[in-house]
């Protein structure tokens, strides 16, 4: 493992931040402080954090509706994320988008999308601009297992392949599209097979192991820059319901529990301890910092002003 210790700690911190951010957000829901919906990625932290931490600031990402890990991985600020979640003017989208549309152009996030698969062609366009401008940067496009059944996925991967664009397609496979298990929404078990339809490379790996995700991304990035698109499938699991109103009657508690035994944070913690990278105290300190960061974000968000109603039409059109 040639990853510098500082990077490993960054990964751990971001994963902890993601977990605490979402646990806190879920609590705010229960407390009735949020109007709207949210999709939590608890259990999947290693995917977005692992991938995005391997990217350069100038690389771009297109996020999903379940993308707090992607956002935090790419370096978005917790306070402005939380403010957006609460619909505040200080939020990334000035309260217009909520967490389904979180974006931060300053760190290279093209935003999350509420239309399943809708962001994939857009990411292809961003990669096209990178190629056209002869930039060294790449675009990473996230989507779920369910999204690979949308026509947009197919068209976008084909176009990216024909034009040899510098884009890494990352499928976060949590084995469910809402209530529908993978084996009832497609007839293959390895989503990476779909790469073959476009003549591009496909690869599946354990999405709960942040180190392999990080390393695979580093490698994929070089590949994509040289050779064009690639499809990376990260197998993982979501612990919480699909969204706030999910009865979760489509899976068993045992299934959820069995995945929790391979919790990405616990796995990573054990590994860091085992390899002697961090002491338990150091990891606890990082976790404590994550908790404090989230608490500060909540405070920032709660004390932030509401958007002004007389400015509601502000960004319908650019001047």
């Amino acid at each position, binding site marked *: 493992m040639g990853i510098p210790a500082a990077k490993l700690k960054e990964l751990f911190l971001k994963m902890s931040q993601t977990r605490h951010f979402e646990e806190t957000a879920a609590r705010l829901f229960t407390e009735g402080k949020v*109007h*709207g919906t949210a999709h939590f990625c608890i259990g999947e932290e290693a995917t977005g954090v692992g991938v995005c931490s391997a990217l350069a600031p100038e690389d771009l990402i297109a996020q999903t509706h379940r993308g707090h890990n992607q956002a935090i991985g790419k370096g978005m600020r917790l306070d402005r994320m939380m403010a957006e979640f609460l619909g505040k003017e200080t939020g990334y989208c000035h309260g217009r988008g*909520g967490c389904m549309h979180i974006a931060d152009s300053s760190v290279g996030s093209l935003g999350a999308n509420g239309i399943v698969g*809708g962001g994939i062609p857009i990411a292809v366009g961003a990669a096209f601009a990178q190629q056209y401008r002869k930039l060294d940067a790449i675009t990473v496009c996230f989507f779920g297992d369910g999204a690979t*059944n949308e026509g947009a996925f197919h068209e976008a991967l084909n176009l990216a392949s024909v034009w040899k664009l510098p884009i890494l397609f990352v499928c976060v496979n949590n084995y469910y599209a809402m209530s529908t298990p993978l084996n009832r*929404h497609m007839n293959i078990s390895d989503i990476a097979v779909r790469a073959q339809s476009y003549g591009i490379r496909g690869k599946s790996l354990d999405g709960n192991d942040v180190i392999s995700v990080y390393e695979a991304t580093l490698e994929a990035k070089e590949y994509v820059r040289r050779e064009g698109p690639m499809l990376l499938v990260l197998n993982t699991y979501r612990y919480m319901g699909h969204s706030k109103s999910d009865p979760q009657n489509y899976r068993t508690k045992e299934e959820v529990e069995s995945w929790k035994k391979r919790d990405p944070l616990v796995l990573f913690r054990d590994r860091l301890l085992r390899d002697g990278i961090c002491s338990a105290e150091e990891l606890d300190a990082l976790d404590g910092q994550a908790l404090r960061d989230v608490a500060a974000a909540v405070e920032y968000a709660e004390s932030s002003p509401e958007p002004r109603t007389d400015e509601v039409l502000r960004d319908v059109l650019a001047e």
Partner: protein
Amino acid sequence: MRELTYAEAIREALSEEMRRDDSVVFLGEDIGVYGGAFGVSRGMLEEFGPVRVRDTPISETAIVGCGVGAAMSGLRPVVEIMFSDFVAVAMDQIVNQAAKARFQFGGQFSVPMVIRTPSGSGTGAAEQHSQSLEAWFVHTPGIKVVTPSTPADAKGMLTTAIRDPNPVLFLEQKLLYRVKGEVPEGEYTIPFGKASVRREGRDVAVITYGRMVQRCLEAADAVAREGIEAEVVDLRSLAPLDRDAIVASAKKCGRVLIVHEACTTGGVGGEIAAIIADSEAFFWLDAPIRRLGGLDSPIPYNRTLEDTVVPRTAGIADALRGLARKGASWPRA
């Protein structure tokens, strides 16, 4: 009479039709064990089984297209699109296929398909999950468009929709799902193209539909205390549209307010205004025809902003007052 919620009324109509006619099948994302994103089909998988209540992959084009092909082959598919915003993903199948199949094949096929989908804002679901898109389809020959505003209408009009030999876009009003109302037991149909006068009046004709009916009635009550008697006409279906009811009410009141949730510009309100302005009611108008639609804006996430962009009861009442005010009309004379 017993009361049901709007969602229960829809479930009852669909279940009754499925019991009555085994050519009725039901397709959509997460409609089975999950019961649909809004719980409309809860329990239906248990009664009808997975052959007739079919969960689909996330593939709106294929879902609607499958409905078209099944309908052309003699089934009566009811297709659920989880949010009406996603009709954009299946637009080709709806507009270029379902709505045109009969005509372009010279009447050889009909397409008895219903697309059920929740429409409208108010849940904090933001830009891509909150639109009111009925105007697109009112402008599409070959498909009917229905917007029931009560549980009883929802039941009767869904039954009508399922039995109709044409494609029907059945726009469920998301914020009404939990609203209760009296609903007759057993099967019944409510014809399309027949508006319902929800409140009689003589001063201002309020032409509206869907979730705005309730707000218009509230506003009418508010201004009634000030002596303004508004008549509230619920269109119920937008294609076909009850031209006669619109014209009659406009003629009777001489002042017209049109209210809908969808963005004002290019909305169905324009069609209604144009019908009145080109009818004999024109000669009876005492004031300009007023439209009160949503602002020309996507639906924002923040609750207050979201509330700002669609007509509210207070705004409707104000518009009624403005219209009814003496002297508002005929400065020319």
